[in-house]
């Protein structure tokens, strides 16, 4: 099963979900795919379908409406899966934390593996977050890296 575990590290397909962010973080996530950062170098592909994804990248604070959607998306991703919370809002609720409709950070609803703080998180930080998630995964799988 060695080759499958190595492949898991080499081919993380991400799916991006926007809870109720101000769109600042979303633009930074998309910036990672541009020629300047080109995350496809590392095999990272931005999927639009939870059934094909490995890593769920969530931006923005969870509100009462998106909580259900987020849980549903998380359930649809086949195992093994990782969740990365991108931006201060996704980590803790950020500037929206005490709004009447906000539940707080992503970890209020689904388990989060890596937190990437920043308002907005820089593309470099997001890539770093994905790398960190992969390191965590490889430790869990017992693949030396």
């Amino acid at each position: 099963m060695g080759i499958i575990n190595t492949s898991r590290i080499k081919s993380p397909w991400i799916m991006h979900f926007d809870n109720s962010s101000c769109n600042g973080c979303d633009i930074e996530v998309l910036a990672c795919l541009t020629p300047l950062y080109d995350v496809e170098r590392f095999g990272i592909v931005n999927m639009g379908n939870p059934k094909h994804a490995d890593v769920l990248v969530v931006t923005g604070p969870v509100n009462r409406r998106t909580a259900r959607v987020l849980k549903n998306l998380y359930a649809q991703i086949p195992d093994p899966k990782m969740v990365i919370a991108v931006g201060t809002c996704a980590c803790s609720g950020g500037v929206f934390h005490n709004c009447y409709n906000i539940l707080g950070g992503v970890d209020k609803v689904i388990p989060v593996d890596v937190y990437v703080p920043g308002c907005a998180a820089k593309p470099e930080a997001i890539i770093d977050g994905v790398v960190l998630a992969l390191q965590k995964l490889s430790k869990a799988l017992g693949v030396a890296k």
Partner: protein
Amino acid sequence: MNQWWIAIIAIIVAPIIGGFLAGIDRKITARLQGRYGPPIVQPFYDFFKLLGKSRIATSRMQFVWIYGYLVFMITCVVFLVLKLDLLLLIFLLGFAGISFVLGGFSSKSPYSHFGANRELMQILSYEPVLLLMALGVYAQNGSFMISEIMKPGAAPLLPSLWPIFIAVLLVLTIKLRKSPFDLSTSHHGHQELVKGIMTEFSGPYYALINLTEWYEIVLVLGIVALFWANPLWVGIIIALAAFVLELIIDNIAARMTVGWMVKFTWAVGLVLCVLNIAYLYLIKGGA
């Protein structure tokens, strides 16, 4: 016994070649877009990763059709390497396509149905062209057998069948799922409706579809190579050149609509084929 070995080697080697071609595809595409691109072996990483994912079932029939798609495609490749009947190969390719479509229809997702409908329109576009290609080969050689095309001393097909060759290049674009004809599923635009038919396939089953696509790349490039089967290396160079040409077209062309695809392939592809066959039969007096 010898035939068995050829078939087994082809079944093992074809997906490896196909996987590397897919990797080269991604690399060249990235370079054409000003990106660095993934390593050449990336498709293999993706394949093994998908194999290791958990299975999520949306419908049981789906899996039957996916295995059907794979098995028919492998049969087509075996037909090609054993130099059997070209006409039968093209009908088997049709079976493979229909299996994929039924796989798309077997779940309830509207996106999947949308993709399956589009795949059906793609089959409608390329299958007549391929059939007429077989007919053109018959008009030239007096036989549908691939062994007749590859017989030592046989004249290459390209000089007399070049209009059909152009039509087959259109089929190549559809079969490789490249712009302007990447309608039912695409290698780009993962968030768009064009990924339709893949919506409900996940994990190991998605990996099987990737595997089938690798066989498919080898198969269609093999069909292109048949146009210059003596000596075969010229044909292989022509096929690889056609592959690179498809990549460039993919990156400079916009995606067209389904209706446009059917009209274009029928108006250009079929007319080229019919004129070619008519010329062979009426002017040159046939085989």
